[in-house]
């Protein structure tokens, strides 16, 4: 099973290569994409089952031993991230095929989307900090291209912000890598975990903060998130869903991984992260309240909810991290589906501006339903997955006496309810406005494929209600694993004859 790990990166890359070759046939491209992405879903599920039974999986790329080769590892956190992300990637691909538009107009769409998929998977499976940088670059360069694929003025403009800030983050990441290598002589994460405790206090603190900042930019935490709401809303319809659902979560994953694995418990930035979490939650949701466009509202909510995940991590307790893991899983499904619904709304009405649409509960009750479930979930209303996640975090927070952050999270939660009802009131209730329609998007009925893809993602988030018990148990096991990094280090270094 260990040898399956590289497949989650290689298969999409092979698919991407095939799609470049088959640039002239959209049908071949579609088949290749769907096959590659489904293969990832299957591999990810197999890995998850295996890792849950057998413990952490390790594979050395190219068979080169630690430390000269690159380590690939899958632990429970990686496995669940792989499963959720691969499910989202294939759903959004199906949706994109249904939507047409960019997917039809650009033969580059499929290969680049697959490269993005490879980058996302590579980030989750790598056990090497430099390779994480490479995975980030794959993901980011693919996202630059997808963001600006339409070539519209607003896209190029916001792409600029996105590219420049991402490059700055990359520069800092490379700098951090160089510095880490300079002081420890390695970039293998297990070796780093082994060696960092020997460093002086101030240096450990410095590295810890530097990595928080680097990954914080990608995750979109306060005060490093500015690029996110400016760029996400302009991306092509289906693409925003993947960006919002997955990309920032890769940053969150990296924060969780680096904070739990690399630094000894004393150096973890608990209280700082709690403050960041509180500010991120509140500032993000206030940003959402100031918007009047569906995608912009949802983009700001991405930020706010990153705050919740950081909140769970920052407690560094079993319940906190388990809550954070559950929150990430829930959030990816819910956020992706909301953006897909926003796409459906735009597809039907030609606009996502709240003032331009209305009355969809009558003209498109199915879309209203597809919006209602994830929206209620996002707002943390029971019994939806968002409630479970929020309850887990608030429970853990109160248990740890982190009252201020709990209050912040509840305030943010109320404001989230407000902005979801704002969308509901404007888009689904009221009279239909005469919309100014972007002709390219005008249509009378949502094509089946888009709705099916959206429905599938919504169904995943609903399944989290029914299977909350096993999923939460899994999250707890993942958290246990994260809080005992010795397991990870042993899995990578222990079996080696060095």
């Amino acid at each position: 099973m260990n040898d399956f790990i590289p497949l989650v990166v290689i298969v999409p890359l092979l698919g991407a290569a095939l799609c470049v070759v088959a640039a002239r046939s959209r049908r071949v491209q579609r088949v290749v994409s769907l096959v590659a992405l489904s293969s990832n879903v299957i591999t990810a599920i197999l890995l998850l089952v295996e890792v849950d039974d057998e413990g952490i999986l390790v594979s050395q790329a190219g068979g080169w031993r630690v430390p000269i080769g690159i380590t690939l590892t899958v632990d429970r956190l990686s496995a669940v991230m792989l499963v959720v992300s691969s499910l989202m990637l294939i759903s959004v691909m199906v949706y994109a095929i249904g939507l047409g538009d960019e997917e039809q107009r650009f033969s580059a769409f499929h290969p680049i989307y697959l490269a993005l998929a490879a980058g996302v998977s590579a980030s989750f499976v790598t056990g090497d900090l430099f390779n994480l940088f490479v995975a980030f670059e794959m993901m980011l360069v693919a996202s630059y291209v997808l963001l600006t694929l339409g070539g519209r003025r607003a896209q190029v403009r916001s792409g600029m912000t996105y590219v420049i800030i991402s490059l700055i983050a990359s520069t800092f990441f490379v700098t951090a890598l160089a510095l880490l290598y300079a002081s420890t002589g390695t970039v293998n994460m297990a070796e780093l975990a082994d060696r960092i405790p020997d460093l002086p206090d101030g240096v450990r603190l410095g590295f810890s903060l530097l990595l928080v900042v680097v990954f914080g930019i990608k995750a979109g935490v306060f005060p490093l998130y500015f690029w996110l709401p400016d760029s996400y809303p302009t991306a092509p319809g289906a693409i925003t869903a993947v960006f919002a659902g997955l990309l920032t979560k890769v940053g969150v994953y990296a924060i969780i991984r680096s904070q739990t694995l690399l630094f000894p418990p004393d150096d973890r930035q608990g209280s700082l992260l709690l403050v960041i979490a509180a500010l991120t939650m509140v500032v993000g949701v206030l940003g959402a309240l100031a918007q009047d466009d569906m995608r912009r509202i949802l983009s700001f909510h991405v930020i706010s909810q990153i705050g919740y995940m950081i909140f769970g991590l920052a407690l560094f307790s079993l319940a906190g991290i388990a809550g954070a893991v559950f929150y990430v899983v829930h959030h990816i499904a819910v956020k992706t589906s909301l953006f897909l619904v926003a796409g459906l709304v735009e597809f039907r009405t030609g606009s996502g501006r709240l003032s331009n649409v209305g009355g969809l509960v009558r003209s498109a009750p199915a879309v209203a339903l597809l919006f209602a479930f994830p929206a209620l979930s996002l707002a943390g209303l029971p019994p939806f997955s968002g409630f479970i996640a929020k309850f887990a975090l608030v429970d853990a927070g109160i248990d740890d006496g982190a009252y201020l952050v709990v209050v912040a999270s509840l305030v943010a939660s109320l404001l989230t309810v407000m902005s979801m009802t704002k969308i509901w009131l404007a888009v689904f209730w009221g009279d239909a406005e005469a919309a100014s329609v972007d002709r390219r998007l005008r249509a009378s009925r949502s094509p089946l494929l888009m709705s099916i893809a959206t429905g599938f993602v919504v169904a995943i988030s609903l399944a989290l209600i029914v299977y909350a018990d096993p999923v939460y148990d899994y999250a707890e096991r993942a958290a246990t694993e994260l809080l005992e990094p010795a397991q990870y280090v042993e899995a990578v270094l222990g079996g080696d004859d060095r």
Partner: protein
Amino acid sequence: MFVLLALHLVVGVSIIASGRILGRRAFLVAAIPALAMCAYALTRAGGVLDGDPVTESYTWISGLDLAIDLRLDAFALAMVALVSGVGLLICLYSLGYFADDHDGHDDHDGDDDQSIADGGSPEPPPAVGRLAGVMVLFAGSMLGVVLTDHLIALFIFWELTSVTSFLLIGNDDRQPRARVAANQAIFITGGGGLVLLAGLILIGQSGGTYLLSELAADPPSGGMVNAGLVCVLIGAFTKSAQAPFSSWLPMAMVAPTPISAYLHSATMVKAGVYLVARLAPIFAVDGVWRPLVLVVGAVTMLIGGLRSLRQHDLKLLLAYGTVSQLGFMMLLFGAGDFHIAEAGIVLLLAHAAFKAALFMVVGIVDHTLGTRDVRHIGRLGRGWRPVLIVGVVSAASMAGLPPLLGFISKEKALDGYLEHADFGGGTAVLIVIVIASVFTFAYSARFVLGLFGMFRDPATAPHAADDVPAGHAPSVAFWLPAAVLAVFTVVAGVAPVIIDRLVEAATVALYPSSEPKPVELWAGFTVALALSLLIIGVGVALTLARSPVEEWQRRSSKLLAPLPSGEDGFVAVLTGITVVARRLTATLQNGSLPIYVAVIVLVAILAPLTGFITEFDSLPDWFDTPAHVAIVAVITAAALGASIVHHRIAAALMLGAVGYAMAGLYVAQGAPDLALTQFSIETLSTVLFVLVLRFLPRTWRVRAPALTTPLRLLVCATVGVGVFVFAIVSSTSRSDVDAPSMSEEMIEAAEPEGKGHNVVNIILVDFRGWDTMGEITVLVVAAVGAVSLARPGRRRDDDEAPVFEEELDALDEPIDDGAEAEEVWG
């Protein structure tokens, strides 16, 4: 019981799905779950009343101690009777209400006589079906609230009632007032719900359990519990429309009348009272509970009664009356004494019966006459007699007249506070109850007088006929459900023995060791009776002198006008939040790339610096050879120059100079291969820069350079100095780690294992080939992206997309943003 809750879900969803086909018949289907629940409750009533609760349990998430534990005890049984019994009647009533009316459009303010147009839409909207479906879902949620023993499960159902009532209140969604009312309701109850959640978790964590039955057995105490209780009470107050959270309830009257009758007589608003009733036996004795509940309840009871007295809209009159009665119930259940709570249970039943009936009466009037403003209602004809009788009987029960159920509840309440209020403030509460009961009498009278057309004002009611034509009378089916309730009011009043067992068992369910007094109409010549007579007497006087009282009210309300009402408060809070949100976001999310970059860069340097600086104790030698000095001087000068000039090509060339000088540094360090690579990269990128910059204006505008240039230099210097410190500190700390570097092992392994002499090559293609694969992908993707972005004229068919030159203009814009941003800095 799970089956029955699931039945509500299934029936509700199917009705919504098939609303278009069913039309108003949906309410017949909606009656099925209510009927089933009633039947179930009846079959279990025997055992439950004997103190033998039915329990069922389902573990949801064991790791979080989340479970749905259902427990049907006698108090829950009483609530079920309200929820499902009244629910059943409401369903039947709705059949009449929505007859020849497919959209429930009749709801508008009394002041606003225009009926809201249907819009004449070709297909009837599924609003009625949807309404019935959501009502079933709501009923299921409400049953969940009263049936769970687990606090978090209770919370889950509690929030579900908030969401479903949001949908019910806003059902007529094309009416702006309905949307606003729904929004306000969910904001207040949803906000209260979150506070409640925090409170429940605090209590649950202190008690070690979320089960009410276990908490009752072993009540926790302490600061955390008190904080939790305050939170829980706030949640309960919002739900039960207590001051200062009561504004949403009157606004919610915009909902169709059957919904108002259901939500505000028997269900939704009673949830808060229910929770208080459940927790009072456990926590009332302790700390903050009693003062908080009693003060809030008393204020609510008084204010609700007073405001009710000045309403012209019968429905609003009832709404404020409901607020007042809810305050009354808080006073009874919150006291934490079983005698008083017993009165509360009787009141719960009495209120459900009379308030639902009164709402139904208003609905009938409104539906038939098209108005519910007392100034527009004329004398009602013969056919109206049953409706009037129901109205009078129910209002009399509300006013507390014998021999009706309302009288018994009031009597018991007075008796409870007279005889058993052995806590501070008991007498004050008693006085409040007496005064507020006078108000209750007065607004009940006002309701009856209004119904009989005594307030008709021909001046303001141009189209109200003097007498309503007889043919316009409501049908039997329409008023029958209300009549059933009125009959209950009378029978239970005359022969309270029929509810005695339920009330007694419910009291024992709340207070296990209590010995409640029997419920009886005639308790002898007591002080309570004297107070009842006093209330009636003053009430009659107040009603007779209603003109001066109204005048006084009008003046006092003018006097009070500058004080914020609950509604104003809500609007102020909402506006405040929006304003703060907009200002904050406009400041933070200002769209200026230079500011974003500056903030991010400063954070990225200053935060880690706090750690690294503490280990910064020794500087290495400044330079090895004089060549270093020269090279560093070039780098510094070129870097400074690049950040000062406003000429694009010059800036690009200076960046190139930095790169070449770096290569020089590599040469000086003895790494010619690295230097060579650097040279080629710099050459290539400088050429590319110049090629691209040809298309852009040669310079860019800078506003207020005197200020922004130093700031930019400061940021640059911070980065330079910061990274310098990082580098020094991290390389000096290498000695603390006693392990070989990767590079050493790689060099060792290169020949024997990698079969190559050039270590760099071996690393790139063998050892770290996985990285290389990724980097190749990056390059290919970038190339493909550049091609697809720059392919000229690729969208000739799409007239909205810019052509190539325009795109380049667009590329230019963020730099203009820079200029704007710098203005912000100024």
